[in-house]
């Protein structure tokens, strides 16, 4: 099939104040093709695509759709051009059904609900979706919501689909299914742009890869000619080594001992059921599991943020004095006052770990602003720490007092991880520490975790990428529906084994939890 150009972006430039998000970027998007857009955090991928979806308007440059110059000033304009974008944050109304969400904002015949239901069924059949048009959004999983977003843009007649980091929130199985759907779209002659930081996904799904670096267009290469290594080097602009080391465990000591941890939701559903394990100092304990099977509650229980049921015991043993204390029933402040330095990088970075409206300095104070005897908060130390983290972790920010929510995802994470590590923890818990981070930054984070391990910290790493878990962690605890479904040795376990344990609950008692 002759490949026609669906969209041509020519010399696009976009500034945000002093930040040059895109500079003279020119790319082609072809029909019947899957194009990956690749670049480090903050390299301008989302911004570039937002100019196609009508969120931003370019400062300079032109956009051609099917060879015709267009100006896209709003999402409606984008739809009129046949462009539909699936954003990272879904824009759905929870109390509406799938079909109601699809027709929302449309007029005339398109808005007819009965019509819509049958057309949604057609779309599902054509591309291989599974979706019940009458299901309410609040009953949907993340992956179902994403499917609904895709259906929404297809219903509006989009021929060009843009997906911004769609796989960041999906399990490997869901990702594979999504890719199947995308391939079907490609077969139907649609143009698909996918943004992802996972290079193996780029290699498996796309036809061509366009690379941005610091807002500049670098090159477009055929996926067939690319390797993980070559793509990573093009993104970063220099040679980088991509392997995760696993230094041998030195002198492990029991640090956190969880016994019979049970957590119930407000409606009495058991989110965690009788969890027992130990985390040792000088070791990285990985926690694997499909999303929402209790990882969040597990970490928050240890951090003193989650109400646990009676009978739970979480013992902390200080590495130096070997004195054990019970953590259950203590809040984060009390835990800190007992002299325990427990660091926690939560999943929700801006909603829990940081204050988005504050700058780096004020965020550094978050956990130890009580220091000192005067009623005044001391800002000198935090400022120094902020400067140090900015320098050492190469945080890209216009200034340490710029609100952190204005930073790109990767930089926000660096600020959070940097602060938690700077607290000289004895226990470091991270939830999805590299979600949404580019490969370079991800490896920086792995390196930092290994440094902590070598310093004798008990590291608990909740992750979703099984390859990384297997490479990084000394032991891997697999959660399944709130149960411990096995604890494996990181060096000998296989991906299949873990995948199996993640989805199939072992019979009670047969799990060999140590």
């Amino acid at each position, binding site marked *: 099939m002759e490949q026609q150009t669906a969209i041509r972006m020519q010399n696009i430039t976009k500034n945000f104040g002093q930040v040059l998000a895109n500079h003279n970027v020119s790319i082609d998007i072809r029909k019947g093709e899957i194009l990956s857009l690749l670049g480090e955090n903050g390299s301008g991928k989302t911004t570039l695509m937002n100019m196609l979806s009508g969120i931003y308007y370019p400062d300079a440059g032109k956009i051609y759709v099917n060879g015709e110059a267009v100006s896209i000033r709003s999402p409606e304009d984008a739809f009129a051009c046949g462009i539909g974008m699936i954003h990272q944050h879904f824009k759905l109304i929870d109390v509406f059904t799938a079909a109601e969400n699809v027709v929302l904002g449309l007029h005339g015949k398109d808005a007819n609900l009965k019509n819509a239901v049958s057309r949604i069924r057609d779309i599902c059949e054509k591309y291989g979706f599974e979706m019940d048009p009458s299901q309410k959004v609040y009953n949907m999983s993340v992956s179902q919501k994403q499917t609904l977003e895709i259906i929404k843009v297809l219903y509006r007649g989009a021929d060009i689909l843009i997906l911004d980091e769609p796989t960041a929130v999906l399990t490997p199985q869901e990702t594979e299914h999504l890719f199947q759907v995308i391939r079907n779209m490609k077969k139907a002659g649609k143009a698909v742009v996918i943004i992802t930081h996972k290079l193996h996904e780029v290699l498996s799904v796309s036809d061509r890869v366009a690379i941005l670096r610091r807002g500049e267009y670098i090159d477009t290469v055929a996926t067939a000619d690319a390797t993980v290594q070559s793509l990573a080097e093009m993104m970063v602009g220099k040679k980088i080594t991509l392997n995760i080391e696993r230094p041998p465990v030195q002198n492990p000591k029991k640090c956190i001992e969880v016994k019979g941890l049970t957590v119930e939701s407000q409606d009495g559903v058991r989110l965690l059921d009788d969890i027992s394990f130990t985390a040792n100092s000088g070791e990285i304990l990985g926690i694997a599991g499909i999303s929402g099977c209790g990882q969040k509650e597990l970490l928050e229980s240890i951090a003193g943020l989650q109400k646990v049921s009676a009978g739970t015991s979480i013992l902390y043993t200080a590495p130096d004095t070997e004195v054990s204390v019970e953590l259950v029933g203590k809040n984060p402040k009390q835990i800190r006052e007992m002299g325990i330095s427990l660091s926690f990088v939560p999943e929700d970075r801006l909603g829990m770990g940081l204050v988005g409206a*504050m700058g780096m300095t004020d965020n550094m104070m978050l*956990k130890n602003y009580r220091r000192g005897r005067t009623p005044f908060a001391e800002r000198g130390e935090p400022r120094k720490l902020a400067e140090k983290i900015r320098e050492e972790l190469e945080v890209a920010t216009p200034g340490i007092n710029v609100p952190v929510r204005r930073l790109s995802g990767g930089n926000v994470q660096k600020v959070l991880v940097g602060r938690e590590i700077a607290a000289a923890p004895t226990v470091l818990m991270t939830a999805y520490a590299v979600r949404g981070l580019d490969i370079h930054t991800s490896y920086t984070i792995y390196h930092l975790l290994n440094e902590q391990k070598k310093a004798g910290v008990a590291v608990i790493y909740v992750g979703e990428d099984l390859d990384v878990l297997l490479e990084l962690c000394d032991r891997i605890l697999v959660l399944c529906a709130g149960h411990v479904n096995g604890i494996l040795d990181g060096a000998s376990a296989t991906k299949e084994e873990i995948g199996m344990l993640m989805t199939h609950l072992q019979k009670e008692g047969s799990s060999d939890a140590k």
Partner: protein
Amino acid sequence: MQSKAETISAKKKYREPLARIAKRDAMPVLLSWGIRAAAVLLSLIVSAVVIYSITTMNPLKVYGAMFEGAFGSQRKIWITVRDTMSLLCIGIALAPAFKMRFWNIGAEGQVLVGGIATAACMIYLGDVLPTYALFIVMIVSSCLAGALWGAIPALFKSRWGTNETLFTLMMNYVAIQITSYCVALWENPYGSNYVGIINPRTKAGWFPEVFGKQYMLNVIIVLTLAVGMFIYLRSTKHGYEISVVGQSENTARYAGINVGKVFVRTMLISGAVAGLTGFIAVSGSSHTISVNTAGGRGFTAIIVAWMAKFNTLTMMLISLLLIFLEKGANEIASNFGLNDFASQIITGIILFFIIGSEFFINYRIIWRKKIREAV
């Protein structure tokens, strides 16, 4: 669908929008105040046109009269100052609550109960206690009354998650009813339904003159509070906690902050300052109490707090402006036989421009470049 898409795209040939809006980086402070000043100037010009077109009066004369109304004589100046201080003091009270995103709509009631407490002290203890003791008792009791009024909704919110906006609003009506009751209790002369001036002869519990000025003490107290609150919010640990709780309760919990406690503590402070405003109003200016002691300032102060972005120093300017407009409006209403509405139009126009200027401070507008060049 298909046909619709085609018609739209046919219509939408390449054409850059006429104007676009983009967010600015932080603007130099001087420039932003320049823009605000320009907005005030512009609003005066627009108001002038409006005044002329509906009344055919010389706008300059009208403005002159407004100025006259607020600053025309020593006495007028001091009344303007007194009322500015009273509005500012409520604004100071609201600052910590609003910074915590706790919508305290109940300053009106908190001021009233503070006023009642003060009046009660003056009536019952005026002849009993020596002056210094009386003042201590008045200050403490008015603060306690206001703090109680503020803390009840906070306590309910932290315990049972009640909505503070409705709760504080309803507390106003309770306070008004209590005031009515007290007015009936203390009315003087009997049957007048007014409390009348309290302790007119002994002046017990009245603010003393300072530097020979009647309202100087009001100024000193309120300006001290403004500076104190500014420091409290900006530099103390409490102030930091308030910001964190206001931005994200989840983050606050993560940091080990007891959110409920911060709610209650901050509303104790907010209510106490509002109660103190009641004390100043009764002891330091009207020397009487009525349901109008707060006079709607509890609500006007919400505008002050927002326009100042909870910065108590900026509030000084904004309170002064609002009180100036109020006095000026009253003056032209009585001098030119215009009704209140004419003066309210002017106030509206001026506020509109000032609030509107914030848009130009935060955003910039990019106009379409030469069309020829683009095509």
